[in-house]
């Protein structure tokens, strides 16, 4: 059935790209875009990076969103969270009213995990939204010491921003090695060595017992009894798919909204972005990514399928993410299967390339400050290249650099 009213729930990158793609494809019907934040759609990657610098950059709104409603003929319902989905009646409940749809795109993203027991204590922050980032920046303006809980990518980016202001920064990580699930143990060790090289203290295998302070945080108490003074605490312990409003709806929820390879979650229901866990035809497994490129492409792809229900196309995508720490560029493509093999540079240096394999397949690549190389590896992974082809590309790249 060709829809007359498309409802997009989630007004960040995936939702915005979906709306734009619908109009670009010539969809002339009604579009409603619902978002739980009051702001027009904005970009998130800068929030944990340059936005935290002292210069007070404006919120990074996406280009052209200021007249989004009029330009694309979109009914904007911002500052209103979806509360419930009825698949049979084809309705979504907001706080105050009910919206009927013909086709629904779920793009509600993820929510930052909170530290249990930290509620209501001033000086403790997570970083996901623009409001979060404004609060973190103001906190950094007030000086250190800063304690970051969690040595993942967001925590590391915030630590980097704080350190570049000259503040005293400590990162606490419960695991013996950071980023193991994202890049493997040896690569996690190599990347987290950047912290020490730039004056940030990283403590691994430490558990947080409690945050101390009256109205405002004063220190972090560890399970070994020691205490680290803190003026500001940033909690970067991951994020969870925002699917609570979908519980009981009948959709399959399992670490996200489970979709088929066309991004369809049920009849006339699609999902895109960080919340979507789709069957990847490139890797023959369910994947859920919290990556910019995936959100942008999935939003557009899901809507194209929505508008061509007779000829839906599988969503092909090789994961790609980047992270910037201390002015160093980390890039990753593919999947982080096992521990990678170093093929260029040195684990202890400021530039290296490492490759991941799954059987005979070349399946992932991690680079530090090798911007010229990363997308060439991605192209190989997309066409299911063998391990030897990956090694051959690495040799070619090493020769090119030596020339």
């Amino acid at each position, binding site marked *: 059935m060709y829809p007359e009213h498309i409802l997009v729930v989630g007004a960040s990158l995936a939702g915005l790209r979906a709306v734009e793609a619908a109009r670009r494809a010539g969809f002339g019907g009604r579009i409603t875009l619902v978002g739980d934040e009051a702001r027009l759609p904005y970009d998130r990657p800068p929030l944990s990076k340059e936005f935290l610098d002292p210069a007070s950059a404006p919120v990074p709104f996406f280009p052209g969103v200021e007249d989004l409603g009029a330009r694309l003929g979109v009914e904007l319902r911002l500052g209103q969270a979806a509360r419930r989905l009825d698949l049979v009646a084809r309705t979504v409940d907001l706080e105050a009213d009910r919206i009927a749809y013909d086709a629904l795109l779920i793009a509600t993203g993820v929510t930052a995990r909170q530290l249990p027991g930290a509620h209501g204590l001033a000086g403790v922050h997570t970083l996901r939204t623009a409001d979060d980032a404004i609060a973190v920046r103001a906190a950094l303006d007030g000086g250190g010491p800063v304690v970051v809980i969690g040595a993942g990518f967001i925590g590391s980016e915030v630590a980097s921003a704080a350190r570049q202001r000259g503040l005293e920064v400590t990162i606490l990580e419960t695991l013996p090695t950071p980023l193991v699930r994202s890049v493997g143990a040896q690569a996690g060790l190599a990347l987290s060595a950047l912290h020490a090289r730039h004056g940030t203290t990283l403590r691994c295998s430490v558990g947080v017992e409690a945050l101390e302070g009256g109205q405002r945080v004063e220190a972090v108490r560890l399970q070994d009894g020691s205490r680290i003074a803190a003026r500001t605490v940033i909690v970067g312990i991951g994020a969870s798919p925002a699917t609570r409003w979908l519980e009981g709806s009948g959709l399959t929820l399992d670490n996200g909204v489970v979709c088929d390879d066309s991004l369809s979650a049920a009849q006339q229901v699609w999902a895109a972005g960080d919340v979507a866990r789709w069957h990847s035809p490139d890797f023959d497994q369910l994947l859920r990514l919290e990556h910019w490129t995936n959100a942008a*492409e999935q939003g557009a792809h899901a809507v194209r399928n929505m508008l061509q229900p007779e000829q839906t196309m599988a969503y092909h995508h090789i994961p790609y993410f980047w992270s910037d720490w201390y002015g160093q560029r980390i890039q990753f493509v593919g999947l982080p299967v096992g521990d990678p093999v170093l093929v260029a540079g040195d684990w202890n240096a400021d530039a290296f390339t490492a490759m991941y394999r799954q059987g005979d397949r070349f399946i992932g690549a991690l680079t530090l400050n090798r*911007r*010229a190389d990363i997308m060439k590896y*991605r192209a190989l992974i997309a066409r299911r290249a063998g391990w030897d082809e990956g090694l051959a590309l690495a040799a070619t790249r090493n020769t090119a*650099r030596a020339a």
Partner: protein
Amino acid sequence: MKTLKIKLDRSKCTSLGICESIAPEYFEVDDQGQLAVLREDVPEEMRALAEQAVAGCPTGALSLESE
């Protein structure tokens, strides 16, 4: 007739490389880590691909202009 051209704003580009991944015939991050636009002119049959590359840029460094 006007030709469509790719414009790169170097003040915004940080060489993330997504454009190279989408349209390697137009873009390549070179060995110095700088994005090179391999050719500027976009004929009509390449327009969709070029638009995809522009939309794929997370820093908004690319645009298409008619000249």
